[in-house]
Every structure is written in structure tokens, then in C-alpha cells.
């Protein structure tokens, strides 16, 4: 009755705006106005773009990356773009899965600049994501003289993906035991070590390493998604629910929470699942879909649509070739009975000397592979 009375009156709320009262949003709006009035103020532009990117990541909201890109536009159109701007531009492109664009931007950063090590590390990371291990190795080596320990972790991570999994795992374990790094570096390296442990069929060990991560840094969506997958492997879906709250905004976490609910027999078809389906559909219309990995995960483990899952996994494979992507492609190919794709993945694994115990079960004959849930 109350709702009916308020319909079509001036007080009726027709749209809610996220974060509009948030002090940081207010500050960012002021900063944006300031940059529009003072377009030559490089410091404020860099600060504003950096804050927008951070906010976009924290709130899993791609609009903020668009705002950051608009702030950078004027500087990118200059003949001599400041290197801080180039680095931020590459960061935005990387988040949007425009990896070649990001690499092009990073390639413009001269070795003599302060930003070069960051650029080299970002390049190594992108090359590794894309499965371009030779180029990634070159980038890691470039870091060698200036940051030997980061270079070493970078190189070990690559070695673990290209045939030296056990050696790399042991060396990284040793490095972390004998050295004390900053929390950011330790957490990053522990994430690598967790991945190596899972691929070595030491899943319990991966969980052990997760406990040493910096508590705040480990809240990052990537780390929690990685930990959730470890918990799934250990058949601990209840712990996944404790790890990922209901109001989570990251796709990667939402699909894992829904998967845990499904395994536990709870009602997982909720507002969140409908929103995800709508989002995947809308993004597929947008062209390039940076959510393809999560879409594949959703169609494979939740809606159980193997063909759709395979399409999304293949789309994702064009962009990303990390262990999770290899697993998703192999599993969706097996589920949908697409043996050509299975053969393709096997060839890729052999060619790169990639080692992963979790893939082995998919290489068994069909009758031996059990249901995934």
C-alpha cells in the first residue's frame, strides 16, 4: 500500500547510485573537475587515474577504468607521453585483456626510466599469461641486475610451467624459507608456490602455504579464487562459503561461491546467478569478453552446459593460458566430447613440457572420469 502511494510521486526513487555518498567518490569527482579545469597538471592526472584504477579493482567496477582512461587520454595524445601515464595506460589495457595493447605501451617505456622495472615485470606477467614463455623469460632476465630476487621468482615461476616443476617448487620454497621479503613479494611468491604445489599433486601443501600470506593482501580476489579452488580439490565447499561473502562483487568469487552452494545442495540459482547470466550474455554482445574464464567456469560447474562452457573456454584461451585456463579448456572439451580440442591441449602440453597433476585425470579414458561435482 505504501509502495502504491509513493508511485509516480516526486519522492519515488527511480535509480540508486552506487557509492555516490562515499567520501572517496566525492573526492574523485572534485579531482576530475579540477583536472578538467587544469588539464596541464600531470601530478593530479596521474593521482586521479591511479585512484580510479584502484577503485575499479576494489569494487570490481569496469566503469572506473573507463574514467581513468578518459583522464589519461589527453596525455596519451601528446607526442611525448610521460612514462607514468604510459604505465597506467598499460595497466588499464591489461585489466581489459587488451594484452597486445598493454605490451605495446610497455615497450614505449625506456630502460633508463624509473618505471622500467615495473614495465618489465608487467611484460613478463602478460607474456606468461599468454603462454609466451620465451618472451616472458627475457623480461624476467631484464630485471636481473636491478631486482635479483624478483627476477629469480619470476624465472622460477616460468621454469615450473616449462618442464622443471619439481626443481622450481623446491627452489622457491627454499627462497621463501631463507629470505625475508616485503609482504607484497612474499604473498605473490606464495601464490606461485601454491600453484606449483597443486600441479605437483600436493594440494594439502598448497593450503598450508596460503596460511603464510599477508592477511590483508590475501583478500585480493585472485588469491581467494585460487584458495577456493584448492578447497574444492580438498572437498571442503563449506570453507569456500566462509571464504567468500554473499555481497562479493568479483565474478571469479561469485561463481566459486555459487559452486560451493550447489555442491552443498543449497539453492544457488539466485539473483547473483541471474545477474551473471545476463552479464555474460551482454558481454558476449559487446565483442571481446574479459569474463570468458568466469563464463566457462559458470557453464561448466553451475548451469552444466558443456557446449557453452567450451565456447567460453576457447574464447578465454585466445587471451589467457594459465593453469586454470588449461584445466578449464581440457575439462570443457572432455565434457562436451570435443576430442579435437582435447588433442590440441595435449599437443600444447607436450610442446611446452607443461606439468599438471590435475590434468592427468582428464587424460584417462572417458569411462574412468567421474563427475566433477
Amino acid at each position: 500500500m505504501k509502495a502504491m502511494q509513493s508511485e509516480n510521486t516526486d519522492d519515488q526513487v527511480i535509480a540508486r547510485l552506487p557509492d555516490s555518498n562515499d567520501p572517496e567518490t566525492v573526492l574523485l569527482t572534485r579531482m576530475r573537475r579540477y583536472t578538467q579545469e587544469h588539464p596541464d597538471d600531470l601530478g593530479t592526472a596521474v593521482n586521479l587515474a591511479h585512484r580510479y584504477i584502484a577503485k575499479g579493482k576494489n569494487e570490481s567496477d569496469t566503469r572506473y577504468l573507463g574514467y581513468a582512461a578518459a583522464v589519461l587520454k589527453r596525455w596519451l595524445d601528446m607526442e611525448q607521453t610521460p612514462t607514468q601515464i604510459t604505465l597506467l595506460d598499460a595497466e588499464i589495457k591489461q585489466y581489459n585483456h587488451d594484452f597486445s595493447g598493454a605490451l605495446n605501451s610497455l615497450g614505449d617505456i625506456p630502460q633508463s626510466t624509473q618505471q622500467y622495472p615495473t614495465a618489465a615485470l608487467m611484460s613478463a606477467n602478460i607474456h606468461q599469461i599468454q603462454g609466451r614463455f620465451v618472451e616472458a623469460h627475457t623480461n624476467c632476465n631484464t630485471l636481473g641486475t636491478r631486482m635479483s630476487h624478483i627476477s629469480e621468482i619470476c624465472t622460477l615461476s616460468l621454469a615450473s610451467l616449462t618442464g622443471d616443476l619439481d626443481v622450481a617448487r623446491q627452489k622457491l620454497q627454499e627462497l621463501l624459507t631463507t629470505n625475508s621479503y616485503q609482504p607484497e613479494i612474499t604473498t605473490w611468491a606464495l601464490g606461485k608456490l601454491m600453484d606449483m604445489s597443486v600441479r605437483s599433486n600436493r594440494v594439502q601443501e598448497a593450503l598450508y602455504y596460503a596460511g603464510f600470506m599477508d592477511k590483508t593482501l590475501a583478500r585480493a580476489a585472485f588469491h581467494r579464487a585460487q584458495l577456493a579452488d584448492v578447497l574444492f580439490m580438498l572437498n571442503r565447499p563449506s570453507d569456500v562459503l566462509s571464504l567468500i561473502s554473499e555481497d562479493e562483487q568479483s565474478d571469479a568469487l561469485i561463481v566459486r561461491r555459487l559452486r560451493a552452494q550447489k555442491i552443498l545442495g543449497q539453492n544457488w540459482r539466485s539473483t547473483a546467478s541471474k545477474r551473471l547470466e545476463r552479464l555474460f550474455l551482454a558481454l558476449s554482445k559487446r565483442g571481446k569478453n574479459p569474463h570468458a574464464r568466469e563464463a566457462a567456469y559458470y557453464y561448466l560447474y553451475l548451469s552444466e552446459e558443456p557446449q557453452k562452457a567450451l565456447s567460453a573456454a576457447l574464447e578465454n584461451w585466445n587471451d589467457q593460458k594459465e593453469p586454470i585456463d588449461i584445466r578449464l579448456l581440457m575439462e570443457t572439451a572432455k565434457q562436451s566430447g570435443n576430442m579435437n580440442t582435447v588433442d590440441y591441449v595435449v599437443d600444447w602440453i607436450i610442446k611446452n613440457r607443461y606439468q599438471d597433476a590435475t590434468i592427468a585425470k582428464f587424460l584417462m579414458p572417458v569411462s574412468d572420469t567421474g563427475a566433477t561435482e
Partner: protein
Amino acid sequence: MMKRLAALLLTTLVATNTAFAHQASDSYLVLTTEGQRVFAQWDIAFRDLNVLLEMDTNGDGSITRGELKSHRSQILDVASRNLILTQGDSKCGFENTTQNPTFLNNDPYLSLNFSVACPNPGEPVRLQYKFLFETDLSHQSLFKLVNNGKETAGIINADNRTLTLNQLSTSVSFTDFFVSGFVHIMDGPDHILFLLVLVIAVTLSAERKHIAKKQICFNTVKLLTAFTVAHAITLGLAQTGILFLPAWLVESAIGLSVAIAAADLFYPFLGAKKWPAAFTFGLIHGLGFASALGPLHIMGTDLVIALTAFNLGIEFGQLVLATTALIILLSLKPQNKIHFFVTRVFATIAFITGLCWFMQRAFGF
């Protein structure tokens, strides 16, 4: 330096792998040509409008109807400055604008509806889209052009901000409607069955009277023409809004017409000349064609061209089918058992099918 780099490790490397659950900044633009007029529907997210207009005047984190009302003229101003339609040097204006809140993909949007008034109807229109790019380079507009029922779609973004809308030429395509008529008759099993029954009826009637094959062909053409003229009349009346009958009634009557025509093959009761019956049933089938064609929203010469082309397409399809049927039937000797078998079996199937359609469409069985 080391600390900054270490911090970047997590901010730049790790988060690469997390995707965003929020809806991206998309607007939806539909441009529809109906005869000489172009209509637009542009749906913009309130969140995007708020970036430019700061509509939340009391800062409570929401937009009310009152706040929308107080910003209507500013919204129209933003719309006309950022969606620019031109013909040569002349700008097309917006007319009859309405603004209504709606929800798309569960997000609140403002739906702007307006007609576009261009100085030279029929000439290509250039569209320039500038909305939000100054503030959000990720913004896109998913557009759809609907030109007399034919759709094309695409994406406008910061790198691709202009379009030349040749599709907005307002002339009605004769070929499109001719093809549509031909496809419709080929796609309609009820019309095909009715037509074949009529052709068989003509050949049987002619055989009883020992009429020459040439005369049979002539009678068939006469019959088809009567059918076409009749359905052209009711199709025209329906498209101009003069005649309206509920779809279930029309479709049921079409099913019944097939059964009646098939019964006539066993017990001729429609008379020796079949064309009056073809004309009568053609009136019913025309209403069926009208619902298949849908509302055209075109008038005057364009409507005449469209209906003529559509009817000619149907006529052409009928001639193709009738010719094929005649070739088969006339190749069989009238006293031949196969001839008897084919016509009687066909008539039985047509009768039962027609009756089923009627029952199904009229009573939902």
C-alpha cells in the same frame, strides 16, 4: 623504489585475473524508419547521466522522479549535443521527446524516445555519437537500425563514433517485399496445401469433362488469379486498418478452408467453376498473410508498392507450386490407378490435416 615496485606486484599482476561483475557502461540506441519518418529510442543508464548532470541534487545516493523532472531540459540538451544526426550540413532535430525511467539488465535506465526530423527524407543520414567519451572511454552504445522491418546492429565506441546510415533511406524496397511474399507462401503449409487441393480439383473436374490440357492450364491460372485478387483485397484492408479479425479466427478459417476444399474432391459441391470458391477462400487467406506481414507503419505510395510486391511474390510462389503440381498430374493418365491413388490419398490427407488445424486453432485441441 623497491616498496613501490613490490606494491605494484599485487596491484598490477594479480588483479589481471579478476573480472568485473558490474555491468559495463552501455547505452542502447534503436533507430526505426517507418515510411518517411525516423524514430529513435535511446536508453541511457542513470548512473552515466549522473556523471554528466549530477542529478542527485540532495546527495542521498538516489535519483527521484522529482530530480528527473527538474533535469528534463538538461537531459534533452545533453542528448541533442551528444547524438548528432546530420544530412550534409543540415542538422536533424528531435521532436516529440519523451523521457521514461526503465530497467535494463536490472540497472536503472532512462528511455528517451523521439522522432528525428531531417530536412531531406530519403537521403543518407550521418550519425555522430559523443556521449560520455570525455569522461568514460569504456562507454559503448549498442545500436540497432530497423528499416521497414529489416534489422542491422552494431557497436559505437570511443574509437568508432560515427556512422553513415544509408539504411535510413526511406524508400520501400520492392524486391524485399516480393521476396518476403514468395518466402511466405513457401513457408506456409496451410496455404500450400490449399493451393494444391485447388489444382487437383481443377484437373479432376477437367478430366471428367475431357477438357484439353491447355484449357486446364488456363483454368488453373484463372483460379490462382482469383485467389490472389481476393487475398490482395483483404491484405490491403487489413494493412490500412479498415478490416480486423482476431488471428485465431482467421487461422481457424484457413484450416477449415483446406478441409472444405479437400472434401470437394470427393463430393464436388463447390460448383464446376472453382474460381468463385478460390476467390471466397482467398479473402480469408489474405487476412492470414496480413498477420504474417505484420504492421508496416507505411502509408501512401510506399504501402501500395509494398503490398503489390508482397502479393506478386505470393503469386509467383503459387505459380511455381501449381506448375510443378500440374506437370506431375498431367503426366499421369486420368484413368491410371496411380493417378486415382495419388489424388484420393492426397485429398484424404489434406482433409484430415485441415480439420486438425481447424480444431487446434479454434478450440486449442
